[in-house]
């Protein structure tokens, strides 16, 4: 049983004076979660609706379907927004959990470093793919290309 907590530091012992009146990231992080959450509801359900319900529905999803979507600037912007907002929203959520539950400084720093690396890698790779995606790269062997490339 956890009957005893030997040392609870007095509240906010580590608070830096610099925090006061300065830019408070927690306020903006909190606001971002609310705003991005609302936008993500529209983006994600719109995404699911277009991919799974419209036309042939889920049966229509293949390489050509995705390639077709990414040839239009509208879906490029849609997917880019979804990627960035979802990744930052999720990262911030996990960040608060780490802040809450990682007791040792080392654990916290390592976990957060891993988290931020994952965020940056995913966002950079995703952004790169959305904008540089070419379904029919020039000079590739014909048997590796989808059928519509020859047309």
């Amino acid at each position, binding site marked *: 049983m956890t*009957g*005893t907590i030997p*040392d609870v530091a007095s*509240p906010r012992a580590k608070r830096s004076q610099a925090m006061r009146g300065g830019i408070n990231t*927690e306020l903006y992080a909190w606001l971002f979660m609310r705003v991005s959450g609302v936008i993500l509801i529209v983006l994600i359900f719109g995404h699911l609706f277009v991919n799974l319900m419209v036309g042939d529905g889920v049966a229509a999803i293949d390489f050509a379907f995705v390639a077709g979507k990414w040839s239009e600037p509208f879906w490029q912007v849609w997917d880019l927004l979804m990627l960035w907002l979802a990744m930052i929203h999720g990262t911030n959520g996990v960040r*608060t959990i780490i802040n809450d539950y990682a007791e040792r400084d080392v654990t916290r720093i390592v976990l957060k470093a891993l988290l931020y690396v994952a965020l940056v890698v995913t966002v950079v790779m995703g952004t790169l793919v959305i904008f540089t995606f070419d379904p029919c790269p020039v000079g590739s062997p014909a048997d590796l290309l989808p059928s519509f490339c020859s047309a």
Partner: protein
Amino acid sequence: MTALADAPEAATDMGEIPSFEVTMRLERYDPDVENPQARWEEFTLTMHGTDRVLDALHKIKWDQDGSLAFRRSCAHGICGSDAMRINGKNRLACKTLLKDLDTSKPITVEPIKGLPVKKDLIVDMEPFFASYREVMPFLITTGNQPSAERLQSAEQRARFDDTTKCILCAACTTSCPVFWTDGQYFGPAAIVNAHRFIFDSRDEGGTQRLQILNDKEGVWRCRTTFNCSEACPRGIEVTKAIAEVKRAIVTRTF
């Protein structure tokens, strides 16, 4: 005639308070033994339908084990001394009737969580009160003192009525999972008491208080789990009060 003769007997039956056996399972902690360790101890008592958890604790302390330590002052739900974790929920021992709990199983009583235990059910309330002091829970005004009362309309008074009910029992703060993590969070009680003055039309320290609560350990650590609102023995809508403080900070910033 028989009906009349039976009457007094029936009356005593009706007035009789039902009694029952109940097992109290208390978390004990004695700091003075060699290797202090929290342990569970059970006491079986005969209690009545009108008895509260506090009465059971009294019975144990007075009749069975005088070494049991717990706080209580008024015993009527207003001093806020006897908040404890009863069957896993933070409540006041003096406002919890035994008959309302499941007496077929032992009733567990633990000290409130997140504060250092001093002995048995007594915790060190100092970190809790330190947060309370930090939000400056007193009227702040500028200029000359008025020669009469500081007047306020009924609507202005109603704005913060809910948060005036706080008795500082710490049931809310010690039910908050964010407070449990490291004890650095201001906690619901401090925010409730800041709310009481922030939304008071007579008070002029609102900006300062909002600045204090716009802290890394301030209102933004609230995850709206509603544990505090559920725990409050005074029925204060704690989570709502915290949300109002958040909104006040946001609207002040933008």
